[in-house]
C-alpha cells in the first residue's frame, strides 16, 4: 500500500522527504515535486501523508488487498492538536474519526537528552532505562515467587 503524490497539489517543499523513515520520498529532477522512489519499500506509516502541508500525498492499497473504490485520508491540524481521519468504504459507508494528537500538554514530557546519562553500574542491572520509576507501578516490579509456580513441574 504505497504512497503517491498528487502533482497538482505538491509544491516541492520537502517536508515529506525530511520525515520519511525509509528515505524513499525524493524530489523529482524534472518537475521538482515529491514522489515515492520505491513503493514496495513503503511501510505505509503515513508520516509523509500527515506531514504534507498541501495534503498532496495519499495512500492506495494494492488491489488484491484493498480493491479500488476505498479512500483513507487524514488531516493533521497541529495548531488544534487534532488528527482527523475519513474512511470511505466501497459500499458507500463512511467513518470519521477525530483524535487528539496528544493527551499530555505540550512540553510536559522530557526528551531523551534531558535525562541524566546512565552510570556504568546501570548497565549490569536487569532494569531497562528509567525503570522502575517510568512504569508507574507502586510497590515495585511484580515478580513471580517460587511458591507461586506449579509444584512438581519446575
Amino acid at each position, binding site marked *: 500500500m504505497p504512497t503517491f503524490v*498528487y502533482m*497538482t*497539489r505538491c*509544491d*516541492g*517543499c*520537502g*517536508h515529506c*522527504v*525530511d520525515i520519511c523513515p525509509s528515505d524513499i520520498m525524493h*524530489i*523529482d*529532477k*524534472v*518537475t*521538482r515535486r515529491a514522489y515515492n522512489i520505491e513503493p514496495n519499500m513503503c511501510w505505509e506509516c503515513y508520516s509523509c501523508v500527515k506531514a504534507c*502541508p*498541501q*495534503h498532496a500525498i495519499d495512500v492506495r492499497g494494492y488491489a488484491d488487498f484493498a480493491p479500488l473504490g476505498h*479512500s483513507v*485520508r*487524514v*488531516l493533521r*491540524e*497541529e*495548531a*488544534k*492538536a*487534532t488528527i*482527523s*481521519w*475519513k474512511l*470511505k468504504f466501497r459500499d458507500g459507508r463512511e467513518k*470519521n474519526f*477525530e483524535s487528539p494528537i496528544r493527551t499530555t500538554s*505540550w512540553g510536559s514530557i522530557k526528551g531523551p537528552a534531558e535525562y541524566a546519562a546512565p552510570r556504568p553500574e546501570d548497565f549490569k542491572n536487569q532494569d531497562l532505562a528509567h525503570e522502575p520509576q517510568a512504569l508507574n507501578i507502586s510497590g515495585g516490579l511484580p515478580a513471580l515467587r517460587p511458591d507461586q509456580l506449579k509444584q512438581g513441574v519446575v
Partner: protein
Amino acid sequence: MFANNPFAALSGVLPANAMQIYLVLMVLAVFAGTLYDVMHKGSAQYFFENWRKSKNNGASPVSGGEMVALAVKTGVVDVLASGEFCNPRRRAAHLLTMYGFVIYVAATAVMVFGYPTPATPTPRIVPLLWWIGGLMICLGGYWFWFFIRVDVAAEGKSPLRLMRADLFVLSLLGSVTLGLIWATLQSRSSAGATVLFGLYIMATTVLFGSVAWSKFAHMFFKPAAAFEKRVSDANGTRSNLPGPADKPELYGSARQQPRHY
C-alpha cells in the same frame, strides 16, 4: 541609465518592428508551448475529469454566484497574493519574482511597441519600471535559487547542480540579468553592448521557447488547480479529506524547515 529606453537605441542597428515581431513571436511561443504541454500531459483531460467527479460526488452543489465568488477569492488570495505557499520565505520570493515579471514584461511591451525609436521620447517612468521589475526578479529569483530551493535547503545539494526542473528559473534569471547588463552597457555606448544583446535574446528565446519542457506553464495550471480545490472544499468533497476539526487553534507549530541532511 534608469531613465533610458534601451530598445529605442536599437533602432540604429535593427528595424523598429524587429523587436515588435520578436515579442509577438515569444507570446505565440508561450501559447503554443502551453497548448502542447496540456495535450502531451493530458492536463486538461485530468482537470475536467476531476471536476466532473467532484461535482457528481459533492454533498452540497455550488451555485453559480458561489462559483463566481470562489473564482474571485482564488484570483485574489491564491494568484495575486500567492496564498497557497505555507512557507513565508517561499511566498515572499515568489511574490517578488511574479510581480517583477509582470512589471518587467509590461514595461518591455510598452517600450517596444509605444516608444520604439528615439524619435518618440519615452516617459522616464517606463524604463524605471523596467529596471524595478528586473531587479525584483533578480532579488526573488536568486534568493530562491541559492537559499530556498528544496534541493539546496532541504537536501543539501550544491546550488550549482543543474537539472531539468531548473530550466524555467535559470532561463528567467539569465534573461533578466543579461538584459539589465545589456541596458547598462547600452546606456554607456560600451563596446560589449551588442554581444550582451545577442546573449539576452538567446536567453529570452530559451525562456519562452522551452515552455513545453519547463515549469513556465505553472502560471496557468496553478490557478486552475487552486480554483478546483476551493470548489471541492465548498461542495463537500474536499478530495475525500476530513473537514477541519471544530477546536480552537491554541498551539504553535513544532514544524521545522526540512533539513534532510
